[in-house]
């Protein structure tokens, strides 16, 4: 056998590196930028922050924690849960009660530590439900998490103790106890609390991926039996991973309770669990930071797009299905696929192909959006008394012209897109094959 090649000869894209330190500066910059962002939108005349921005950023933080915790199951352990909101919501409910207890004087904790308590609550529930769920095989696991989710959501509407029934439970976050002497009366203060905890939680979950449990969870995901024949009980691994994921989700729920002051059954309900699936998968379940992208994007769409269109959820659904079919590695996966190309300095080769892709892509997208918006307006929007304004011009839904344009864009754009995708694929293969060759 020949002498084995040295490490540097391994093509960059085939190395299973932990993120090299020099790439981490991006995250550092992003965190700083996020911290500064509210001040860029500060109204210096009235002395007020943009409520919209702060709400959206705060929501993003909670959803980032939520989806990262979900990825501990989906991406890292290969477990598909349909009831993850349970831990988020129960963490929230618990925090409301902790806050009330703090106000009543029986729980003398500063507000900054409340998310920690929420995490402990999440951990507790994670242990209980994990014990039930972790023994199951894949589909049974999905079913049992769904069952638990529906049970808790129904219970949350029904019972007044702890859940407060349909109206939920509420508390005041200004418990006048803080590590840093902050009152948390204003949203900017709450925002920084959320930012800090998001950072803490994310780093915690990142740390976990580099511990024995973390890597064995990956191993169990890839090869259940092999993990057994290495001395590990894969069910125990799943159980621990499940419980810890519940803990972090609980932290998210705690922040939710602190921010909004009220928690209702929405926080444990199926739509939120579905959200976890969507955010995590779209962002990319195979790479650690994928869910961060997904949560950011979905929250942006939720805050922004929902104002513009009634049908924004359809777009999310279509995006999700497209990802499942064509890009299972999610947004992060797609970005990561370019890493070796970028490192080899060959990105330039892809510029023109991408432009050629984006034109029909845009046309198809416009056609699709047009059709959806037209239909939506026809049925809902009109009844609401609005007039349809697309790209700055008023459109009469009952004329055939707009429909024809939309259909035309969709069909013709789609056909052209398919053509371009094929030629792009050829160029992509060429570039990656070239990369492989260069390193040998």
């Amino acid at each position: 056998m020949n002498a084995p090649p040295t490490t540097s000869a391994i093509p960059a894209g085939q190395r299973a590196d932990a993120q090299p330190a020099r790439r981490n500066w991006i995250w550092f910059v992003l965190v700083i930028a996020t911290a500064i962002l509210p001040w860029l939108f500060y109204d210096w005349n009235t002395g007020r922050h943009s409520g919209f921005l702060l709400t959206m950023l705060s929501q993003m933080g909670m959803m980032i924690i939520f989806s990262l915790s979900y990825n501990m199951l989906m991406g890292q352990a290969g477990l598909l849960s349909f009831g993850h909101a349970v831990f988020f919501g129960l963490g929230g409910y618990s925090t409301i009660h902790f806050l009330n207890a703090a106000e009543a004087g029986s729980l003398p904790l500063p507000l900054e530590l409340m998310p920690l308590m929420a995490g402990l609550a999440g951990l507790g529930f994670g242990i209980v439900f994990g014990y039930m769920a972790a023994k199951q095989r894949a589909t049974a696991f999905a079913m049992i998490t769904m069952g638990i989710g529906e049970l808790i959501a129904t219970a949350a509407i029904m019972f007044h103790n702890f859940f407060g029934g349909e109206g939920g439970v509420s508390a005041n976050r200004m418990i006048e106890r803080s590590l840093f002497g902050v009152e948390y009366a204003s949203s900017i203060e709450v925002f920084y609390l959320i930012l800090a905890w998001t950072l803490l939680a994310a780093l915690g979950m990142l740390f976990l991926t580099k511990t024995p449990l973390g890597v064995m969870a990956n191993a169990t995901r890839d090869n259940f039996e092999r993990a057994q024949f290495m001395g590990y009980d894969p069910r125990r691994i799943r159980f621990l991973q499940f419980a810890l994921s519940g803990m972090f989700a609980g932290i998210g729920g705690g922040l939710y309770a602190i921010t909004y002051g009220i928690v209702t059954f929405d926080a444990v309900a199926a739509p939120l669990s579905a959200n976890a699936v969507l955010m995590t998968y779209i962002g990319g379940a195979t790479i650690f930071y994928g869910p961060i992208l997904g949560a950011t994007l979905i929250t942006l769409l939720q805050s922004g797009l929902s104002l513009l269109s009634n049908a924004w959820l359809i777009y999310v659904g279509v995006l999700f299905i497209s990802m499942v079919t064509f890009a299972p590695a999610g947004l992060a996966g797609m970005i990561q696929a370019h890493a070796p190309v970028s490192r080899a300095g060959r990105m330039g080769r892809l510029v023109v192909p991408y432009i050629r892709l984006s034109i029909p892509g845009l046309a198809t997208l416009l056609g699709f959006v047009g059709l959806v918006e037209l239909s939506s307006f026809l049925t809902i929007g009109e009844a609401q008394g609005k007039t349809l304004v697309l790209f700055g011009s008023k459109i009469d839904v009952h004329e055939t012209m707009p429909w024809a344009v939309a259909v035309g864009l969709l069909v013709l754009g789609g056909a052209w897109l398919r053509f371009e995708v094929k030629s792009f694929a050829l160029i992509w293969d060429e570039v990656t094959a070239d990369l492989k060759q260069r390193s040998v």
Partner: protein
Amino acid sequence: MEIVLISLLNGFVYGMLLFMLASGLTLIFSMMGVLNFAHAGIYMIGAYVAFEVSRMVGFWPALIIAPLVCAAIGAAIEVWGLRRTHHNGHIAELLFTFGLFFIIERGVQMVWGMLPVPYRVPTALDFPLFNLYGINFPAYRGFMLLIAGGMLLSIWLLLTRTRIGLIIQASLTHPNMVSSLGHNVPRVFTMVFAGGCFLAGLAGVIGGNYQVTEPSMAAALGPIVFVVVVFGGLGSLAGCFIASIIVGMLQTFAVVVDFSLSDLLGGLGDWIGTKNLLGEILAVPVSRIGPLLPYAMMVLMLLFRPRGLMGTRDT
């Protein structure tokens, strides 16, 4: 006594409706390993299409057209969607149907709005069939039983008396083997999937006016159907049938049962009181807890007997 008999009948009707939905789902799940999340969505489409067709030409054409439309949609989903995601694994297929359900729900909401549509029982069938202890049993429910029963019979005949039926039966329990034997499994899959959607659509036609036709009907019924499938067990239509009837009965009877767990346990409820959660759980009457019961059943079944009542493989 009257209540018991009436509830028995109603429970049976509801159970048959569930079976129509669950049978398609169990067939698809057992054969292809895909848990079709979109199944309840197809049911909903069936109801809405039936509503539209009824408005335009009448109920009876709708009875045939709507299921066919659903079958066509099912075939399209299988050929253009599931086949592509198949090589990405079971989880990808599951997520695909999950996303599909999502889109169907929003799409229906968008086209028909959020409020229920007036999809009513056809006047030809809107009369009391018989009178039991002063309560009328509507003819439409009898019609539903007829359709469901006819469907059950057809499936049974198809599966046991035709060649394709034998292949399907074999694929229920040994899908890989059937494929190795050289049968055109993809085509069988498409047929089964379309067939399952046909059934779901048919269930939508007759169920849509029995219950309310609104965008949330899929989300309300969907999880219950999963409970039935899990409860009945993989690979067994008989188990599916039994489970459907049990769940149907359970939900129907629960509504009329007024006592609570604490009543059963003697004065335990009084001692714990309702100021805490445990006490509240014990004190709530079964009639209110009805929606919870199927999920509790499913969770318990998965905990103690993952292969369901009559399943041939573990879920």
